[in-house]
């Protein structure tokens, strides 16, 4: 784990020769990366506040479904969502059709605003979940007390909560947006909308300038490290937490209309692209491209390999415990798949052809990137199992494999299933390091989509998107379900 994160970084540093010389294009990439991430995070958090407030204090039909939907971006492949966004906001999308009706000119989804739009689409749900959690963490008694005193709830209870929660949400989303490669690849590009990761990709694939790629990877690592430290300082909350189905009883009148509008707009913003994925993808299913099933098999193989590896690593690290294990479980949050990919490229290039290593490297990097999420699911569950049953196991002499077999694995079945589903879906939809390594014959489904989009075969790309979405959801469902069926009570 440390080898993959820090080791690849060392390889990159060695290749860069520790000489950080940046051209004007590089500087503008750094600038764009930073400000688009800041803008995306700020917009996501700001827009999330009214939605979270509405969800916190209103009970309405479909609320549960909406809260579930807010968890979907975790397992929705980025590239699939991009297809949906193009279907809504792109040329020939439903928004432009509507604008044309009232005589307004077409808007384009490509460029910096497309990148920001996609980032808000992905991170608004996360921000809503984080802030909703903040709202629900205010004890119900305080609302009752405030109501009985006639005190202003907003200033007394809500503003302090937001001040505590919002910076963490901002920091997490800022970090995510720094490292989102697939969005920049498909919607960004050009001198004004190139991120550092996209520049790394271009340096490796088009210019074959490994030195420049290495320098950029160092820069990207620095950015991510700074953002990760920011997350830590802000005390970022846990987004995987459950228990969002509660509604806080509130006593102040009014705001009903405002809440309804907030929820309706958010639901529309999230669901329209999802609907477009199906609407655009369905016709594409009749004309699926050559090589689809090979790519699908490769995607599944990579996802299964990454899942097995992530679970094994997360379990081993959780069992081992200690500061080093905690570091190893957190480090990938600051790592970027493109930085790791560049490091591995630099290391492997003299030894094997990158395309031959493409799938193995992708699986490894995906496993690493998913590790923090798996660990966050498994570590508390393990602690709980040990607290409740550890003494009994110890008194019976269950050590080593026996303890794993009779206590830990059965008690961790549900979280293991959930973590496996999460990892599988994340890996299935990942478009990052595979783009650096793959040749024509090694494409996974996301990469196949990018190639189709680059060739303007949008209908086929949409068909593949639907297949990819179905496979990701199926993988998540099978694993998660497997953990639940006959699960330990």
């Amino acid at each position, binding site marked *: 784990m440390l080898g993959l994160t820090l080791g690849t970084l060392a390889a990159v540093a060695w290749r860069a020769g520790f000489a950080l010389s940046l051209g004007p294009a590089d500087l503008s990439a750094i600038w764009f990366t930073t400000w688009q991430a800041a803008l995306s995070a700020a917009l996501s958090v700001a827009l999330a506040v009214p939605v979270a407030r509405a969800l916190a204090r209103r009970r309405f039909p479909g609320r549960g479904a909406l809260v579930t939907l807010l968890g979907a971006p975790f397992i929705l492949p980025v590239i699939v969502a991009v297809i949906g966004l193009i279907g809504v906001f792109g040329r020939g999308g439903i928004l432009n059709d509507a604008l044309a009706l009232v005589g307004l000119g077409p808007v384009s989804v490509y460029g910096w605003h497309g990148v920001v739009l996609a980032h808000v689409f992905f991170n608004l749900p996360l921000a809503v979940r984080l802030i909703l959690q903040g709202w629900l963490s205010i004890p119900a008694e305080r609302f009752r007390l405030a109501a009985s005193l006639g005190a202003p709830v907003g200033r007394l209870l809500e503003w302090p909560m937001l001040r505590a929660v919002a910076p963490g949400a901002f920091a997490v989303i800022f970090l995510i947006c720094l490292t989102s490669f697939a969005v920049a690849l498909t919607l960004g590009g050009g001198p004004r909308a190139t991120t550092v990761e996209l520049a790394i990709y271009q340096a490796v694939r088009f210019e074959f300038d490994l030195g420049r790629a290495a320098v950029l990877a160092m820069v990207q690592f620095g950015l991510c490290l700074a953002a990760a430290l920011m997350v830590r300082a802000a005390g970022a909350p846990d987004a995987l937490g459950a228990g969002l189905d509660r509604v806080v009883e509130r006593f102040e009148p009014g705001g009903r209309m405002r809440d309804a509008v907030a929820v309706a707009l958010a639901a529309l913003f999230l669901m329209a692209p999802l609907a477009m994925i199906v609407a655009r993808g369905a016709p594409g299913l009749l004309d699926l491209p050559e090589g689809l099933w090979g790519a699908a098999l490769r995607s599944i193989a990579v996802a299964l390999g990454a899942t097995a590896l992530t679970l094994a690593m997360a379990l081993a690290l959780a069992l081992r415990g200690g500061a080093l294990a905690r570091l190893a479980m957190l480090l990938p949050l600051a790592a970027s798949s493109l930085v790791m990919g560049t490091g591995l490229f630099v290391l492997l290039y003299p030894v094997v052809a990158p395309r031959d290593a493409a799938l193995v490297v992708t699986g490894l990097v995906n496993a690493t990137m998913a590790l923090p999420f798996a660990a966050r699911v498994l570590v508390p569950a393990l602690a709980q199992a040990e607290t*409740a*049953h550890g*003494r*009994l196991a*110890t*008194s*019976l*002499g*269950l*050590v080593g494999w*026996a303890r794993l*077999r*009779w*206590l830990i694995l*059965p*008690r961790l*079945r549900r979280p293991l299933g959930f973590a496996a589903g999460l990892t599988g879906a994340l890996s299935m939809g990942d478009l990052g390091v595979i783009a650096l390594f793959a040749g024509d014959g090694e494409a996974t489904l996301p990469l196949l989509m990018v190639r189709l989009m680059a060739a303007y075969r949008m209908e086929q790309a949409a068909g593949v998107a639907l297949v990819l979405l179905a496979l990701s959801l199926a993988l998540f469902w099978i694993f998660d379900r497997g953990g639940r069926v006959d699960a*330990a*009570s």
Partner: protein
Amino acid sequence: MLRLEGLEIRQGDFELRADWALPDGAVCAVMGPSGGGKSTLLAVIAGFLAPTSGRVSWNGHELTALPPARRPISILFQDNNLFPHLTVERNLALGLDPRGRLDAGSRQRIAEVLDRVGLAGMGARKPAALSGGQQSRAALARALLMDRALVLLDEPFAALGPGLRMEMLDLAREVLSGEGRTLLMVSHAPEDAARIASHIVLVHDGVAATPEAAGPLLADPPRALRSYLGR
């Protein structure tokens, strides 16, 4: 014979000392106010907590440094005495062999002890499908199966109603305390002690006192016990 020599347990403000021996075959109730250290004393004897100083020994063999499973001890906790994800038979099998092997011979032995505690034919059930009393019986069956010389009961029946609790204590004495086994049980209820205990250890003011014969002690309690009993 269980012997505690110069035993001292300190955790922050908490302090407990003990220096005594308990004769084999005794059924000893550990009594005293809440927070006095009754469960802590059992945790040290069982090996879940290292004493600050002093020794725990059994028949002259020092136990102090041994892990819990290597001591001649089985223990029933306040709760979670069965793994909820395993059947009763599996739970009991782990008492015979921590690797959980289950062959014809062990199946036979498990069926026998289940019969003895009144759970005949219930081996295939999971704990959730048993009543509270039946779960206690299953836990007793495992202690019986483990066949250790010293059995510690850390109020395993506290959640049961008074009638059922008495029933379980009787069963515990009947099946466990025979064959020369020693029983050491934490107890809140003097009627429990009066019913089955041969000895009483009073834990009070940072000291676990030397075990005394239960009958005379309960008939003419010293001041510390009187105030605890509210007489």
